[in-house]
């Protein structure tokens, strides 16, 4: 009974360059480490093949070193790997694939399907129908030829494509590279392995997006998995099982601080962060001086313990209480200014002025606290 792993969107070479290098480099390396895990998984699961549905590379112009590292990572499993190009690594006249071949790093058991023609693997009972992207974007359905493609009887007909299934993901995905939603049925496929959508998604019993095996977005959509597909015989319904492959947890945390206990909840979340968490934190609302101090401390702790903590506190206002102001010994015209800033930062008619006022208030508070602690 043939079984294989279905994965896609490895996006090797992705840099996360907007993160500081100390966080970006490990995250980039994690994508290659994930391929190593896939290889290990393939061995562990004793599958017959691994199908990769496009976007193996994040870009055509990744460095030679990156190309070599990928194929090194795949070397852990010597069964057949079947790869098709996606929109990020389309099989153009000159592409990352031609380069890989020029570099001589593609081993025999790795099948690069750069042209739309059947790949027959009778040893393991598979007939693969690939729909490689040969342009960056196409507006025709590259899987159309599957319908008329002849394959030997007795082999499973497995489609391999990269694009967006029409009508289902229209709003989420670029309408380029369309795939007919009933392709599996029309082309009498036993399974259609899809890539492009980074989450794991079932289109129908025979049509699946595997999602990226290592998450790369702050979106909880089932990424970080590969699909193990078992098909008893041609025509039999596939048994699809998701297997975890991802390492990092990408999380987006949004908190609106309105009442003091809101902060407690946020702090609890922050304190729960672990080493593989990649967090995007947005905080809005208002804090008094003491609460602000607690938040700052908690953020410093969290930043030290998780992989990456992205912060957006632009919408967070500092709102010193009258007691705060008294404690700052800010009286006279200084006191007047603090009151004025406090009022101004809440103005909604002029957000720019409000933002400056909030910043100024925070600054002033910090300075006064410094002065107070110094005296």
């Amino acid at each position: 009974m043939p079984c294989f792993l279905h994965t896609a969107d490895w996006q090797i070479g992705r840099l996360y360059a907007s993160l500081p290098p100390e966080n970006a480099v490990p995250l980039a390396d994690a994508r290659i480490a994930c391929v190593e895990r896939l290889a290990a998984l393939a061995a562990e699961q004793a599958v017959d093949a691994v199908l990769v549905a496009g976007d193996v590379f994040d870009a055509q112009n990744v460095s030679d070193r990156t190309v070599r590292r990928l194929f090194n990572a795949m070397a852990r499993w010597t069964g057949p790997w079947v790869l098709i190009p996606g929109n990020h690594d389309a099989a153009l006249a000159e592409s990352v694939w031609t380069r890989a071949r020029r570099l001589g790093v593609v081993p025999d058991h790795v099948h690069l399907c750069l042209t739309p023609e059947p790949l027959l693997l009778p040893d393991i009972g598979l007939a693969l129908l690939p729909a490689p992207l040969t342009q960056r974007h196409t507006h025709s359905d590259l899987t159309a030829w599957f319908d008329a493609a002849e394959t030997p009887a007795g082999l499973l007909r497995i489609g391999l494509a990269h694009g967006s299934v029409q009508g289902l993901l229209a709003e989420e995905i670029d309408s380029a590279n369309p795939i007919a939603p009933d392709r599996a049925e029309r082309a009498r496929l036993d399974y259609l392995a899809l890539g492009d959508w980074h989450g794991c998604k079932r289109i129908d019993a025979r049509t699946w997006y595997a999602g990226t095996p290592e998450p790369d977005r702050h979106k909880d959509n089932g990424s970080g998995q590969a699909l193990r597909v078992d098909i008893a015989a041609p025509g039999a319904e596939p048994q699809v099982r998701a297997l975890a492959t991802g390492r990092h947890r990408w999380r987006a945390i949004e908190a609106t601080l309105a009442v003091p206990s809101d902060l407690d909840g946020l702090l609890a979340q922050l304190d729960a962060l672990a080493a593989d968490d990649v967090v995007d934190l947005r905080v809005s609302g208002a804090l008094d001086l003491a609460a602000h101090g607690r938040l700052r401390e908690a953020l410093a702790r969290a930043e030290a313990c998780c992989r990456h903590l992205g912060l957006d506190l632009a919408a967070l206002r500092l709102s010193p209480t009258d007691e705060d102001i008294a404690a700052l010994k800010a009286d006279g015209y200084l006191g007047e200014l603090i009151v004025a800033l406090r009022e101004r930062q809440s103005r909604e008619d002029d957000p720019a002025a409000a933002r400056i006022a909030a910043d100024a208030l925070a600054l002033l508070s910090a300075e006064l606290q410094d002065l107070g602690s110094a005296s």
Partner: protein
Amino acid sequence: MTLLLTRLKVEQVRKFRQPFELTGLQPGLNLFSGDNEAGKSTLVRAIRAAFFERHGTNVVEDLRPWGDAGATPQVEIDFRLDGEDGQLFKRFLGKKRCQLRLGSRTLEGTEAEDLLAERLGYAYAAKGASKTEHWGIPGLLWIEQGSGQDIHDAAGHAREHLHGALQRGGGGQGADAVGALAASAGDGLLARLLERRGELLTGTGKPRAALAEAIERVVSLDEQRRELDQRIDTYRRQVDLLDALRRAHAADERERPWQALERDLVQARGKLAALQDSQRQLTQDQQRHAGLQAQVGLLQQQIQAAQQQADGLQRREVEQARTQSARETADAAAQQARERLEAAQALAAQAAALSARWRAQASRAEQLRQQRELQAAQSTRQVALTQAEAAAATLARLRAQAGARALSDEVVKTLRQLDARRRELATRRDAAATRLALDLLPGVTLTLQADGVADQALSGTSRQVLVRPTTLDIPGFGRLTISPGGQDLDELARQLADTDGRWQAALAQAGVADLSGAEQRLAQHADLLRQIGLAEQALALQAPQGIDALRQAQAEGAARLAQVEAARALIGDMAEPDPSVDPIVALAQAESDQKAADAAVQRAQQASTTAGQQLAAATTAEVQARHERDALAALLADPERQAQAAKAAHQLLEASAERDALALRIEQTAQALAQARPAIVEQDVQRLGASVTQQTRAHQQRREQILVLETQLAEAGAQGLDEQLAHVDGEQVRAIARRDQLQRRADALALLCRELAERRAATLAQLQGPLTRHLQHHLALLFPQATLSVDARLAPGELTRADAHGRTETGAIDALSFGAREQLGLIARCAYADLLLEAGRPTLLILDDALVHSDAQRLAQMKRVLYDVAQRHQVLLFTCHPEDWRDLGVQARPIHPA
């Protein structure tokens, strides 16, 4: 007027070793006068010490009188404070004590001191002597000698009190004392914020340092990004181009479009070759046609010529007949001319004979005449010749004689001179010579011998003059040698000998024996010369041209004569002419006749010659005409010639036919060629050839371009452009974030600095208001129209007033003269006093020797100020110039230690 001193007593203080007391101090102005060293400043010092120094301090040694180390300075001051009477007693250094009575209370020690300090607004030094910064309000109002101008520090030290006064007094307007404190804290904060702002912004608000760098970094990353975008775009376009090229190349490989073109090219080339053949044929035809045309022409000419020859024979028959007739006519004419010539010649011969005869007659007569003349001339010349020859002989003889006698005057003259010299020398020698007189017996002969002279035999009587050593041989006796002793004798002898030599030589040369011979010969020669002259004249008379010319003329005459005689002999004997006829006239007639006969002969000769020539020409013409006729006739009669003519006619027919056929073919071919457009076909060949080349070359180039692109792309791919772009993107995101953070911080800082500065300025202005008012009150007395600003430290800032020209000028008071600064300092203190008074603080003005640097006019103004101030405050004024203050309305109280 909440503080009023009423009595001051000092004891053992500097000048005042003994107790000294000032009583009855009045509210308002109190004037104390005293000379230098009288103790005015001591009193001021005592007041300060009483208030500012702790009674327990040991740093007031200066209070002790000089040289009195055991003194215990004490001060006692009675005063009235806020309506309560009080007394302060302080004793320093020994038995230290401080006692304060105030109203009903009595306090001792530091408690008393602290109370006073708080009420009066000053502080104590924590350790050591009290310094200006502790003095507070009194420090401001109690002006030490020479420090009236120094207002800023004093005002600074009293600042809290002034603030307090401002808050509590009329200017407060709702703010409280804490506000003033905050403002002072605010200064530090503002300074700090400004410093922070300065880290990001320039004074004018432009980005600097980290902010400027962050902005620049974003710009630079933008640029990098753009460049990378461009490179990636180029890369992508090259990839697309490669794809397109490969497709095109594959299509070419498949379709090979140049092959069809090559087929077309072969076809066109074939067509062109055919056309070129056709063209060649045409050219050949045209050449052949031209040849035929020429042949036809030639044949036609040949036939025509034959016809013309046939026509010519007849003409030549006629011509031959005509020339024959002409020759016969000429023949007759020639015969006739010859006869006429012969007749004329006969006549001419007769005339010539007659003429010759007469010429001979005339010639003979002439020769006879010449012969006679010649003979006469010969005989004349013979006579002259004879005489001339005789003259010439005479002349030759004379000349020979003259030559023999020739002697020049010069020679004779030389001889004369030499003779004279010789005689003179001989005379001088003889005079000097030794004279020897001899009178020898007869028969005795002596021989006289001298050098160079022949021996001389002497006998008888003689006189000898001896000029040289001479030996006289006396036979039988021996020899006597006489040596003349004259000194010059030898020289004279030598000169004489020399002159004698020359004399002898000259005589020999002249060929004479002596001088008289010479003279004679000179006279003979002159006579001979005269005779020669006469002989020459005689000869010239006979033969003026010379005797030779005469001889030649005579010979010539003889020859001529012989010639004439020979000629006459030649004529010989002739018949004696008719004497009646003049041979000359007859000769002339005969010659004339002969000439006419000759002319007739000549004419006849000419006519005969002409006739002969005409005959010759006619004969030639006749012969030629006959020949021509005969030749042509022979030719025409030749059968070969007839055959040729027939052949030519035949050839003409054939050639014409061929020519016409060719013309037709030429026309057809030319037309065909014109329709086929060979030039266009040639262009087709070129075009197709170029197309084939272009197609194959394009194919080749495309292949090369593909290789180049493949290499370029392989290279570019290895550069990881997308990775670089992602990297730059990330950098950019971070750079923008940093820039925004810094910008926000800068904005916030700018806002804070601005707002704080504005609020601080507003607060200050609020505080400064009452002070300004008080300042202005007093300032108007000194400088009408002027204003004095108050700075942030509540000290006088800038003075604005009208200058001498009515212009407004503004400047810091530090820039003013010392006197003016002192005046303004005093005015400021008066204003502070008023302000403090309003706030209910104790005020007392002490002026120690104030305004000494003021001129009379300013001093007068200042006195008005002081008088005005004294209406509200107690003023203690110490001076050493009481006369300056007479118009203050108070009596000066003299001070002098007891």
